[in-house]
């Protein structure tokens, strides 16, 4: 049937009671029914598939980047707490695990280098508070943080939504155990040499061991104070050294961009300089 468009169409009496008035809508209905019937739709031209997914039995294919349950690769995690720092909801907290020496979990962490330490830090998540924004995965310097496709987290009690670190551990066979340290924060620490007291805390805390402590300026008694020197190619920008510093002599600064010739650095005046130049100037200033 045509839809009324002109005035003549509207004034016309609609055929009802005739064969055309009854049969035509009937044909339309039957046609529609045949097109959508489960079995017949394959035989009829223009047949359509059912759109409903039978969810509990037949699951929809999710995109590969879907962020569901967290899973952390314990071989790669170095316990730097960077994920807890970038988390907008502060739902990540860390648990301490005391383990045997020569355990596989110790491998990348600083505990391996400190023979006295037998404790590793691994993240745990409150799933009931998590935004699933993926910041933790994005900023993880060792790619230890992953997300699985699982989304069925619904539960009967609030306290069961706190997932312990061992429950989020990735199975060992899924891990490729290759660690590449990348500074995804785009920041690295700068030391104010005059303020530093040479307590070596940052050296002890650094998860990647990028801090070396050579002799710096002399103190009042004429003895040299040890001052941290950073290897910025290894630094991951985790701010551990800034957090532990007792006199606040360290602060974070942005890195410009990476080039073939090495790291570039933007100072507070907005000048882009090579890191070597910056450090040389700093040393010269300190000598004066």
């Amino acid at each position, binding site marked *: 049937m045509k839809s009324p468009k002109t005035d003549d169409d509207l004034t016309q009496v609609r055929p009802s009671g005739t064969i055309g008035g009854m049969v035509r809508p009937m044909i339309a209905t039957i046609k529609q029914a045949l097109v959508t019937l489960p079995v017949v739709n394959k035989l009829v031209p223009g047949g359509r598939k059912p*759109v*409903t997914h039978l*969810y509990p039995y037949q699951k929809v294919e999710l995109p590969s980047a879907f962020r569901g349950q967290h899973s952390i690769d314990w071989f790669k995690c170095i316990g730097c707490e960077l994920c807890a720092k970038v988390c907008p909801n502060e739902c990540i907290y860390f648990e301490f695990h005391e383990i045997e020496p020569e355990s596989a979990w110790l491998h990348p962490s600083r505990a391996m280098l400190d023979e006295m330490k037998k404790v590793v830090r691994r993240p745990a998540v409150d799933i009931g*508070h998590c935004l699933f924004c993926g910041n933790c995965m994005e900023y993880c310097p060792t790619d230890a943080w992953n997300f699985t496709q699982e989304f069925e*987290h619904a539960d*009967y009690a609030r306290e069961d939504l706190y997932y312990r670190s061992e429950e989020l551990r990735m199975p060992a066979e899924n891990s490729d155990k290759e660690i590449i340290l990348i500074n995804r924060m785009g920041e690295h620490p700068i030391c104010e040499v005059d303020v530093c007291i040479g307590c070596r805390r940052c050296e002890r805390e650094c998860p990647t061991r990028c801090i070396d402590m050579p002799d710096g300026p002399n103190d009042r008694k004429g003895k040299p104070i040890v001052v941290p020197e950073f290897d910025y190619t290894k630094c991951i920008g985790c701010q551990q050294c800034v957090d532990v510093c007792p006199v606040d002599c360290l602060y974070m600064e942005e890195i410009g961009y990476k080039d073939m010739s090495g790291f570039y650095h933007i100072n507070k005046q907005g000048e882009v300089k090579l890191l070597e130049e910056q450090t040389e100037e700093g040393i010269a200033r300190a000598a004066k």
Partner: protein
Amino acid sequence: MIQRAEQSNIVGLRSKDFLKWVDENIDAPLKRGPGGKMLKKMKEGLVGEFFNWAKRNSTWPLHFGIMCCAIEMAATSDPRYDIERFGVIYRSSPRQCDVLLLNGPISLKLRPVVRRLYEQMADPKWVIAMGECTICGGPYYDSYSVVKGSYTFVPTDIFIPGCPVRPEALIDGFLKLNAKIKAERTGWIRTKKGRTVSAREGELMNLEEGEYTYEVPQDRR
């Protein structure tokens, strides 16, 4: 004006009071009679099973959207994830509902309204907290005007984390509510981690203290 003497004869309109009245005045005399045992069996076995089946296959939620999770709630009832397959039909009046589906951060201004909606619903009733905003405040956990979780003022039965919750996850939440209603007879149900909690509605809440109790009921295996 109702006289005071007359007041005492009026049965309370709350369904729990009515059930208590039925137990005292109709059930108890019948039980004392000869067919008491048979009546008990009928009520708990056949009729109870039937009512349980009817309850768990018609969990009608309230059509009450607070924030962005309401879009997912709408998507769940579309033909792609047809939630009416499980008897979930959205109703606009709390009088016709069994489930209070909360989706979004509950501000301090909205809290009394939600509480009133919960009170207006007829027993038995359940509450589903959908999305992290309802569970614990979500990204607004620091805000001065957002309630830190629906469980602080209504007894919440199902918590569905996600931001936002996928439509399938909401269906999964309703299926878990079905499982909870089915387990009402035994009174105990296992969580995803394998812990045993009470399956009776509002059992985990102590509303008189005004706080969600973290005490776990005794394990009975």
